[in-house]
């Protein structure tokens, strides 16, 4: 049983092809980085993985559940951190998390125990009663990650979760999620355009103009080159075209 499996996924906005025959697998407990420049199709892929919209061509399977045939079972196994903030800033951290737990059918003591555990895991226990608006950007993101873990998903999807954060917060969050994958066996798909968020042991998926260019271990794929150079060499035609 794979953690996450994507087969021949196509998607178009009108005549513009956003995803073209994308296929990959992420094994359970693996951290996979989906690396691509802006406009590569990362957010479209995330929208399809979270069933915000669907496509007739291709197949997505989450922890063995086919997303189109059994969407509820598949969605129950997914934790998501969207690129855009989804916290209700006027509510406290606790209220935000309780709301999310309820959307997954959790309430009362079960919800409380899970929320406490998720907050502790992300070092946010002392922030539980602060208003989301009063948190800094890094803490808000950590709250969203904590929230995505409440229902104990087996696959965690993060769409450019470090956008807009300072270097220290970025590193803290990247390290946290790597640790979650290692220690809890969580399957992670982390979309980014920043190469310094990727470790050599990570699975690397390079997406460019809707096509998957490379799929392998980051350290192996980059060879002797720094990852940034390798990434630029793979996607340079686009940059040349833009110039």
């Amino acid at each position, binding site marked *: 049983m794979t953690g996450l499996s994507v087969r021949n996924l196509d998607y178009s906005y009108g005549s513009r092809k956003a995803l073209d025959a994308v296929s990959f697998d992420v094994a359970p407990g693996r951290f996979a980085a989906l690396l691509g420049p802006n406009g590569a199709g990362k957010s479209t892929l995330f929208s399809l993985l979270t069933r915000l*919209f669907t496509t007739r061509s291709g197949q997505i399977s989450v922890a063995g559940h086919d997303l189109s045939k059994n969407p509820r079972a598949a*969605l129950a196994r*997914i934790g998501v951190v*969207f690129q855009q903030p989804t916290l209700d800033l006027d*509510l406290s951290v606790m209220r935000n998390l309780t709301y999310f737990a309820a959307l997954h059918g959790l309430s009362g003591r079960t919800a409380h125990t899970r929320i406490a555990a998720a907050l502790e895991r992300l070092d946010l226990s002392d922030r539980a009663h602060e208003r989301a608006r009063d948190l800094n950007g890094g803490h808000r993101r950590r709250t969203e990650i904590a929230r995505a873990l409440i229902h104990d998903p087996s696959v965690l999807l993060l769409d450019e979760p470090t956008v807009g954060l300072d270097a220290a917060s970025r590193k803290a969050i990247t390290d946290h999620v790597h640790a979650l994958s290692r220690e809890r066996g969580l399957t992670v798909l982390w979309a980014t355009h920043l190469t310094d968020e990727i470790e050599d042991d990570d699975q690397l998926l390079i997406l460019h103009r809707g096509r998957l260019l490379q799929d392998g271990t980051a350290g192996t794929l980059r060879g002797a080159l720094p990852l940034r150079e390798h990434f630029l060499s793979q996607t340079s035609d686009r940059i040349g075209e833009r110039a």
Partner: protein
Amino acid sequence: MNAALIALRAIVLREALRFVRQRGRFVAALVRPLIWLLVFAAGFRAALGLSITPPYQTYITYEVYIVPGLCGMIALFNGMQSSLSLVYDREMGSMRLLLTSPLPRWWLLFCRLLASTAISILQTYCFLAVAAAFGIQLPVWGYVAVLPALVVAGIMLGALGLALSSLIRQLENFAGVMNFVIFPMFFLSTALYPLWKMAESSTLLRDICAVNPFTHAVELIRFALYGQFNGPALGWTVLAGAVFLGLAFWGYDPARGLLRRKG
């Protein structure tokens, strides 16, 4: 408790908490109908003569006549505002969160509708309390009997807003909705003047008013406020609500609609 009910309770509670915290929204929701009641109606009182028509059993002042219409107006504005706020990206974020829940999507949308209806009912009762303080009192049992009418009207108008929100691409179009949905629905209804009065100036306008679902929502509320049941008004409101709800579910279907275009 079952998962669907846990989600319903949480969605309603969240909307209520947001509403309580957004005092400006509450004040605006209350001031709008009060201006109509205390300024517009006072000015029109002398100009407009009203005969005795059901559910009224005696001559009434214009202020008394427009109270049900203003209750409808609260539901209309609230239904449009809460759903069209989804056009904002920030609100879209919370919608994304909602729609990635493993519960059936139609149920999640319906919960959101119920939540916004609950808020509009709260606003309506506040408005009725202030109106009563200004001497516009209704039969005591009317305040209870109107509750189910407000639920039906609120769901119908909220469903219309939700359906529109799945079709509208940009925030700028809110002005278009004001001009082409809210104003025509409100003015071409029995909220401000009875149908027979409208017929005196134009039978075409009267006919348009007669098919406007908002007219039936207002009449349902008007009769309920006097402890009376208006079957045809209920039928029309439920029918319109079912159509709008169907459109909203269709619009939010993952294979099409707002989310796809926003992707």
